[in-house]
Structures are given as C-alpha cells and as structure tokens.
C-alpha cells in the first residue's frame, strides 16, 4: 500500500468515532499498545527524540530499499501517535517518505499535537523520520 492508501485507511478508521474524542483517544491508546517495539539495544540516549515531554526512542534502518522504523515512548498517547506514524511511513521508500504531506493528522483530529506548545514532539518525530530517510537517499 502507498502512504496515501494507509492514510486513507486510518482516516476511515477514526471516522467511525465521529465527534467522540474519548473513543478516538481510547483507540489511539490501543494503537500505542500495538507499537512495533524498538530492540532494547537501540533504546539509547542518542536515539531519544529531543523536544518531547515524554521520551521517544526511534530507530531507523533501510532494508530492501525500504525504511523500517521501530520505536518506543514512555507516555501512551505519544506512543499511539508514534504507532500511527510508523504505520504510515514504515516499509516505504525513503523518496516517498520525504515527500509525504501527512495531511491525515489534521483530518483525524490530532492537529493540536502539531502545535509547538504541546511539547510532545509530534513535529520532532516527523522531522526525525524524514531526516533519517533523507540520509539513505543516494
């Protein structure tokens, strides 16, 4: 599936909850619990994403020309957001990742987490995922 396809799938999934933000966040928390966990050996100080009130560890690697991301976070809502991002961007080509607009974040009602004052680092996470992808483009 392309990045856009997965974004569409997530939008449909969140659409089911309509305006019920509690259900939406409960779903996000469930997604957090399903996050593909980072190998503990990569859960290092240097893999921590700065600018997060909760700690997020992200590990990126290139396997068969596709980016594979694994991560962990100590706050569950943050973990949910990381899980959504990984679902969209992991297993995709670096060229496609750096071009991704990720408009679905706004559509599913998580836009508030993009505000720099939230200090949860959703923006830092996206930046880190894209920079890591960029590093693998020859």
């Amino acid at each position, binding site marked *: 599936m392309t990045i856009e396809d997965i974004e569409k799938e997530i939008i449909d999934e969140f659409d089911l909850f309509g305006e019920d*933000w509690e259900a939406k*966040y409960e779903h996000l928390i469930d997604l957090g619990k399903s996050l593909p966990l980072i190998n503990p050996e990569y859960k290092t100080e240097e893999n921590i994403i700065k600018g997060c*009130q909760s700690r997020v560890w992200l590990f990126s690697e290139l396997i068969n020309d596709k980016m594979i991301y694994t991560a962990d976070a100590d706050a*569950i*809502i943050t973990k949910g957001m990381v899980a959504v991002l990984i679902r969209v961007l992991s297993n995709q080509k670096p060229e496609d990742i750096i071009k991704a607009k990720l408009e679905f974040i706004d559509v599913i009602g998580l836009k508030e987490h993009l505000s720099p004052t939230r200090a*949860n680092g959703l923006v830092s996470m996206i930046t880190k995922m894209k920079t890591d992808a960029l590093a693998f483009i020859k």
Partner: protein
Amino acid sequence: MIDQNNIREQFPILNQKVNGYNLIYFDNGATSQKPISVIERISDYYKHSNSNIHRGVHSLSRHATDLFEKSRHTIASYFNINNPQQFIFTGGTTDSINMVAQGLAKNYFKPGDEIILSTYEHHSNILPWQLWAQENGGKLKIIPLNNDQTLDYNSLPNLITKKTKLIAVTHVSNTLGLISDIEKIKTEATKHNIPVLVDGAQSAPHMAIDLKKLDVDFFVCSAHKMYGPTGIGLLYLSEKWLNHLALSKTGGGIIKSVSFEKTEYVEGALKFEPGTPHIAGAVAFGEAINFINRISIEKIFEIENELVQYAQEKLNELPEIMMYGKNTHKAGVISFNVKNQHPFDVGTLLDKYGIAVRTGHHCTQPLMQHLNIQGTVRISFAVYNTKNEIDFFIEKLKKVITMLS
C-alpha cells in the same frame, strides 16, 4: 464573608469554554489570571497617562512618574518596608536573581567561594549561581530533603564552611507547594554572617510576607503570578545591599553626571533601573496588590488552603494516586502522579475536559532526580478556584485513569 462569585466575576478569562467544557484553570503556579482592574489599569495608563518617567518637566511625565512611584510605595507597604527605594522593578524573578548573581560576582564573591541552595530550587535559582561557580571554581552545596520531602534544616551547620558566601533558597517549592522555614535558615546564616536570598515567586502570591520580620538580604518575585502583568517583577534589597550591590546593567536615566572618564550614579532603586522601565507593568503591578489587599492576603491563604486540603482529601481517596510532599504546610500547589501512567498522558486528557494543569519537571529537574521520577501532574490554585471545580476535576481524573489503564 467573601463572595466567591464576586471574585470570579472580576476575571473575564474564566468565563470561557475550552474543548466544549467550562475552563478550569489549575495552572496558577505558572501564571495567575488577571482581574479586570489590572487589565483596565494597563489600558488606562496608555490611554491617559503614558509618558516617559523621571526626566520630563511636563505635566504628563510628572503624572506617569507619580503613578510609577506610587506603585513602588504600595508594594513596599504590602511587604511592610518603610523605604520604597529598597524595591527595584525588574523583568521578573529570573531577571532579579541574575541581577544579584552578576552584582555579587563583581565585588563580593571570590574564586572558590561556596553558595548553598536547596533541593527544591527552580532552575532559575540554580543556573545563575552554577554559571558563576563554573567560571570561578566555586561550589554549590545543596540542602537535602527529609523523607517527608521537607527540607533537612539540620544539615545546614554541616554545609556551612568559611567559604560559604550566600544561601539562596526558594520560599515555596513550585513543584511540591511545601513552604521553607526561612526563619530557621536565617538563624543559622546569621551565626556566620552569611547573606540570604529568598525566591518568593511561589510564596508572594499565596501568603502574607513581612520583609521587615523576615529580615533577609534579597527577596525576589514576579507580578504575573500575583494577578499582575507579565514582564515585571521585584528585587528587594536590604538597606545594606541597596548601597553595596554592584550594578549588572547600566544606561540612561540613572546618573547624576556622565563624562567619558567617569559617571556618578543616582542613589536608591533608580540606580538599578536603567533605560525606560516597563512603566505600565509597574503601575498595573501596584493595582494587582490593591486587588489582593481588597480581599487580604490572609483571606486568600485561607481560601486556597481550604482548596488544597479539599483536593488532597479527594485525591487520597483514589488508590491510583501517588501524591508528593504529603504535608499540610502547603501554599496553593499539589503535585501527584497516577501510578504507572505518564504525567503527559494525564495532562493531555484532562485538557480535553477543559482542565488546565501543568505536567513535566516544572523546571526542577534536580528535585525530579531526587524523587526518581520524570515529572508530575501539578495543580495549583488561585483565589478564584472553587470546590466545585475540584469535584469536576476529580470526576474527570477518575475517567482519565480508566481510559489509560
């Protein structure tokens, strides 16, 4: 009898919905809201009185100067000090502490000197001293905590050496709300002739402070946590330091005469206020003190203390809650965590219910390291908060706990 509705009506910002719920503002430790009298004072100042102070011969300048100095008087009498010149208007607590640190560095500290701080300190009462210590081979010594998270005053005699040149402590922990016993610290300091700086950022908004009685060398606080505007605060100097503290910044408006060789400075507070100060802010700060005086700071303490007691009681009923600083001697602040949950998650979900709390390390990372935690959820009260708000908060906190588990 104080009518809580009457108080709330004076704060227009409280009358709004956040995420579809009535705003509940429990982040007063970060900054308090402003009553209409303070807001209008700022606007009136610019509408009717704005002019530069202390130099103009024209009537408007005299009028602005009068308002500015009247505010200094109001503040001085609020803190029970006869000489208003001992109160310098600064940019806020951080600015005030930096002014003291830079001033003392010029003509008082010697390389290798020691400064005593407490485990409670906010970063703003650590970093200026740490910077000086790093540059001058100095040393910071830290008053440890007892098991109940109160300060271990018995450690003081062991911390003090011949090189101790200052004790700088917070009056109230911004994270735990616990009140430091300044008298005990002062007694020990006096024995060795060591000056004391008190960071009053979190005490001045909540409790009566008599600086004559407290008799410390430096006292600092910010207007914006005391119903006043942002960008203005105080540096109180004892008579001795008013004459001895070296200037850390200089410029226009504070001189008697200037030649390229030599400058003669004015005396008193003005010497420390170069350039055009935040006049509207200073005037509105006085108005904030008037607001406090109309209720009385003793009454405010009583109202807030009742809220603290009530909230602690309710939080204690929840088995999932870990409370820090379980001590009754608190000023307006409660810190807690939900067991096994990150404070960020708790704060994010409470916000969805329109409840503003603070989460994180609260700029007290050394205290967090001592408690061995990443952060806490902090609720902090002001005079306009109510038990109904606490009830709603507890109801939603229970819901949040269910959502997260």
